[in-house]
């Protein structure tokens, strides 16, 4: 249970199971927001399936009944300066 599920944010399996039980969570999005799992540099790319499986077990559902994490752009980290140069005039 001390398994690290989210390596970016160092969130353990126990922390995720505890949060699901304490707050009656039903979605991976809630787990992410409450525990920080999936919020790090890789944006859940490696841990999302693991969190989904834990959620499925805790709520007695099949994996395909648990909604995947909603994706948030950008797909890869991008420098603030690069974003600033994208479009629009100075203001």
């Amino acid at each position, binding site marked *: 249970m001390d398994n690290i599920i989210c390596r970016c*944010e160092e969130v353990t399996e126990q922390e995720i199971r505890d949060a699901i039980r*304490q*707050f*009656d*969570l*039903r*979605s991976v*999005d*809630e787990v992410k*927001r*409450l525990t*920080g799992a999936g*919020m*790090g*540099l890789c*944006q859940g790319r490696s841990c999302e399936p693991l969190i989904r499986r834990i959620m499925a077990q805790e709520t007695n559902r099949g994996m395909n009944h648990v*909604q995947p994490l909603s994706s*948030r*752009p*950008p797909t890869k*980290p*991008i*420098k*603030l*300066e690069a*974003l*600033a*140069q*994208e*479009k*629009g*005039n*100075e*203001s």
Partner: protein
Amino acid sequence: MNKAADVVVIGGGVIGCSVAYHLAKRGAKVTLIEKREGLCLGASGSNQGGVPVALSLPESPLLGLIRESARLYKSLSQEIGYDVDYEQTGLLICSVDEKQRPHFEKHAQKMQEKGVNIRILEGDEIRKLEPVIGDDVVAGIEEWESGTVNPFKVTHGFAYAARKMGAEFLLATNIYKIEIKENRITAVVTDKGRITTDYIVTAAGAWSPEIGQMVGLTIPVKPQRGQIIVTEPLPFNERWKYICDADYLSIAFNAEAAAKSTDLRTRLGVAGNYVQKNTGTWTIGSSRDFAGYNNQGTMEATSYLAKRMIKFLHKYKEVNCIRTYAGFRPFCYADDHPIISKVDNLSGFLIATGHAGKGVTLAPLTGKFISELITENKTSMPIDALCFSRFKGMENESG
């Protein structure tokens, strides 16, 4: 699956959960209905967790309410038995435009008269205290009543405490109909069954007008989109972890004036609002535009957010942005004030929405007021400015 409740709360955001908690605390049997499969998935989960005091207009009826709600946050973690990450960070309002100086000097003076702990700092003093602040910043206002919270933890914390006192939460539940008999609320019909109840509290945020329509009311709220960027974690700032743009004191909160501006950034409602979380990441907000219920971010607004951030916090131009998100503030297009109210001629129907960007800020107090309205028929502070009857005669207007 038919049930009975004293109060049905509609909406599982920070307002609905606060209402559920405060009512359960007063002994009411509460059922909260949320259409999505989870709590805090709308505006409550798409903001920056700021509780800003000095951004209010000094003469606004909201100032006193904001200060009281900010005060309630200080003891909230202890009260609900769960740490919501409240921190009295204070707030630094920065200007990059010398022309704004007379305006914000007046703002600071009026706030001082109201007893807010506030002072003006020159650009060089600010940079000495906080070396990451950019050279463009000419002056600023610092104020110490403001704070930040983790909005997910506030929402789930209220829900957790409410459940412990017997409140029931129905997720992924849709409302078909609200039953009324002789101008009294009698029941809510959902896809999971019928719930008989004497009271309904509409806390459905930007979706509240749909609930209003079910009982023939026009709730003058529309979705105001807000976009936010999240950075990688950075070392903690020395003094200010909550910094914002003096545009908020002039144009940014004035939707009408912003819409008429010749400047595209201003029209998109982009003004800087920067919060460093306890993980070290910064959230960079925010924009304000009206795009219906489309929560896809736009590159245009994102780019302006980044540009604006670099002006204020120049040294962060090299940092990585790892995520963006958008949500819908419930914007009251009649006067940009929340609606916390009973409704004339419809006994048992209450409204708690229209907070726009102040939902997290006012959540503790909103829940308290609604519980007082239901159990005592009065509130502990005057909230006439927030009553629903102020919209009389404008039923057919829309935003």
